[in-house]
């Protein structure tokens, strides 16, 4: 400790604080709290955290087919013979695969782009796993007839879906987009024009 009561910059505590501070959404105070929590925790708990961090970096790879995070390639979904193989759902992030799987309503395969076209953030089509998707679709053995683009319903998601549509339609593949409209529990009064317009456009018969 120096005279102001702070750990020296090269001390183990300062290095741990700095490591936590590099994580997204963690400010300097939160980083300190986390570091001191680890310091006070039993040796076993700290060891488990360290092991988990190293293990995830060592064992998690990208599935060679769908680009999802997995411990074995091909991943569990790509290797499942009971999945429908003619439909691929394209998502932005691995967490989106988990979200769609939770619904239990989709039995096809996935493709993870690992991002979305966002010029404002310097992300272009070449930074995403689009070439891998094209290679997969051009492989005649896959027999894919439909690609569902499940990017988020925002500007970047729209740009990505239109870009994919432009690329994939000439391959003779049907390109669809998740339906857009009002979320459950929304108020019409507060809906924006785009959302409300699309909710009207994609209205359904009441059954």
């Amino acid at each position: 400790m120096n005279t102001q009561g702070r750990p020296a910059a090269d001390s183990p505590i300062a290095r741990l604080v700095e490591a936590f501070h590099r994580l997204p959404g963690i400010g300097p105070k939160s980083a300190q709290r986390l570091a001191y929590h680890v310091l006070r925790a039993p040796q076993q708990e700290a060891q488990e955290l360290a092991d988990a961090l190293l293990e995830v970096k060592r064992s998690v790879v990208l599935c060679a087919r769908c680009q999802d995070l997995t411990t074995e390639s091909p991943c569990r979904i790509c290797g499942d013979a009971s999945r429908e193989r003619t439909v691929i759902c394209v998502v932005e992030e691995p967490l989106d695969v988990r979200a769609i799987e939770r619904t239990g309503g989709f039995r096809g395969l996935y493709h993870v782009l690992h991002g979305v076209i966002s010029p404002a953030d310097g992300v272009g089509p070449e930074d995403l796993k689009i070439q891998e998707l094209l290679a997969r679709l051009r492989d005649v053995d896959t027999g894919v007839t439909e690609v569902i683009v499940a990017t988020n319903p925002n500007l970047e998601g729209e740009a990505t879906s239109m870009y994919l549509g432009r690329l994939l339609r000439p391959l003779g593949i049907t390109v669809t987009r998740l339906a857009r409209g009002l979320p459950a529990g929304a108020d019409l009064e507060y809906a924006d024009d785009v959302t409300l317009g699309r909710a009207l456009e994609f209205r359904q018969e009441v059954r």
Partner: protein
Amino acid sequence: MARAVRAADGGAERGPDDAPAGTIGPMPARIPRVTKTEAIVLRHRRLGDADRIVTLLTPGRGKIDVVAKGALRARSRMAGHLEPLTRTEVVLAHGRSMDIVTQAHTLDAFVTLRADLDRLSSAMYLVEVADRLTFEDVDAGVAYGLLHVALTRLSRGDGLQLTTRVFELALLDASGFRPEWGQCVACGDAVPADRAAWSATAGGVVCERCRGGAGGAAPIDARVLRVLRAYQSLPYEEAARIRLDAELAARLEQVMHEVMHHVVERELKSARFVAAARRAGASAATIADAAGERG
């Protein structure tokens, strides 16, 4: 209660009793707690698990970052009104470091832009240009008006090149970076279009005599120069009558991208996306043609 106030010019503190009898003395400048303004949403980024920092271009306060609390939640009442490329009316509560959006209402969502990849990518480019050429707490009434008009023109189907180039030239002019297409930037003489060279570094065209002194000056297609002069000087409706073939449009775009790159001192990332969208269209057309021939 007599309370000392600091003069607006930063002068010494004085009490209200110092004002001459019968007049109202200088009032302290107060920042209103809630303000209302219209704005165009330039971009946003995530803040924690549920909030967003939204960058707005406003006429009066220039470019500002504001916090939209809960905008990442599916049931957010504001998220749709704060999407990039939306002209919106916002109510802002004065915050310590950033203002907080308390209400947002869409004035124009430019819906047709979002259904056409070429228009959408061009609109993203316009927004990035406006983002780079505007600043916080600097009046941006002209820039705001130009962006609003350009997005309106794009969404109603005006030419992509026309709308984009006219916007770039007008915004450069308003920002103090007007390129000089008529007279030599070195000697001031009028430069004939068919004997001109140009340099982004020099800020415009140079005549044959001065070309040696303008490092990096390169020849410029006379047709490109005539179009640039027309776009810079003619009313929009007259400029819209100029017909551009694909080659001329590409050269025009190349020159203006060089100008913008020089002015903003960095690559405009959306320009790459405009090109990628166009390439995707061209390759799709090629595949479709090949399939047609096979069929």
